[in-house]
């Protein structure tokens, strides 16, 4: 690495503001985010929430695309198994993303960058915890380069 590039990297690391994309199910986790907000719990502004009707609406493309176009971490949050608004959606989520999580780790994506969790509408605290937890870990890892489209600019 050249000196200039090295300096730029140091600068980058100092100014590093992770970008986290969180897919939240409308019925539980999005309401959980609401509750976290109304309870004035702190969760960072770097988390971009995308509301989905159900956690099983998220497919693998969404996760990869998020990494491709700038995310340093991706979160999928849905209702606890058994509480799905559509009865069974999150049971499928559980299988699908258990496999995707392992697959991403297998091709070398740091595990902390992708998180799936169950957050109910009443768990404002958990919502803030999960978001802060991922943010903290991703911050330590630094900016994500893997899967990133080289044409992407912040």
């Amino acid at each position, binding site marked *: 690495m050249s000196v200039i590039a090295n300096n730029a990297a140091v600068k980058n690391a100092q100014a590093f503001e992770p970008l986290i994309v969180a897919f939240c199910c409308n019925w539980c986790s999005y309401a959980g985010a609401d509750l976290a907000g109304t309870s004035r719990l702190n969760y960072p502004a770097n988390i971009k929430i995308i509301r989905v009707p159900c956690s099983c609406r998220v497919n*693998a*493309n969404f996760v*990869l*695309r998020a990494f*491709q176009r700038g995310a340093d971490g991706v979160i999928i949050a849905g209702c*606890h*198994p*058994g*509480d799905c608004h559509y009865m*069974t959606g999150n*049971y*499928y989520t*559980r*299988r*699908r*993303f*258990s*496999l*995707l*999580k*392992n*697959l*991403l*780790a*297998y*091709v*070398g*994506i*740091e*595990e902390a960058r992708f*998180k*799936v*969790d*169950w957050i109910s509408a009443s768990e404002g605290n958990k919502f803030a915890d999960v978001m802060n937890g991922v943010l903290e870990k991703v911050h330590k890892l630094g900016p994500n380069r*893997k*899967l*990133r*489209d*080289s*044409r992407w600019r912040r």
Partner: protein
Amino acid sequence: MEKIKEEIRQIAREALTGKKVDIILAWEKGPLWYDSYPAFFTKEEEVDSLTWDSFCINNLSKYLLEETMADKKVGVFVKGCDALAFNQMMQDNRIRRDNVVVYGLPCPGMIDPDKVRAKRLNRGLTEVKQSGDELIFVTKDGEITVPAHEVYYDKCLYCHYPNPVVYDQLIGEKVAAETALDRSERFSQVEALEALSAEERFAYWDSQFSKCMRCFACRNVCPACSCERCTFDDDDLDILGKAREDSEDQFFHLIRAYHVVGRCIDCGECSRVCPQDIPLEKLNRKLIKDINALYGEYQAGLDPSTKAPLVTYQLEDADSFTAGEKGGKGT
């Protein structure tokens, strides 16, 4: 195999003349020693060029897609792995069973031309004969006998289902189903990768994926990749661009592997046809291994009446992300 070949030809002729089928789908010998490629036969006299030898690696089941769509009656010959593929396509509702007559061929194993070349057995090669567990390579300079497992495809050495699991008529005797290599061994390369660090794994896969030229041969040959319209072909969806860009290669590979999860029969066709020698089986088998570990042993294509692992669930399923606690009620 010689004897079986005659039998196959006879069956094909009778099926065509008796109007039992409109088309016979089998193999034909090409100009090169390792060429036994898929061929369609519609007339009795064409059947003379039909072949069955140790190079009939191509899976014919995939061709049933378009053919059955055209409302034709097709007779198809299937080896063990092709039968799994057939079943998988049945499970995915991509074959109309009434339109197909399946002739099952117990398979002794197929020869990997690369292994033949590595042994330099291809020089002046005119014919390969099978006798028991040995293969006789008839060359211009005489005959060379080698143990069959030394030149068979790796996948054949792991094969558990050399006898077709589905057929209307079985041709010849069933072969022994014991494998030359321990079947769990097929995950050893996956385990070796798992043991590396994230950085090493990324470096490995990045170097593999970036070789890809997105010819889509791996998709086209795959019996589990049978969608009428592939998401990668649909420009309107803006799923995949055309740029030579590493992230797009990575995207393609992860989605390809993920789309066949739970439906991949581990036939190895994708890695076989890849012109860039990308070890796609290491992705497929990782997913198979994880399904087996998380949701119980599953072999795609064994029974089309069951549900693939990703289109079903159990209330008490494990997951890979909540560290032991399963979450939810009643678990």
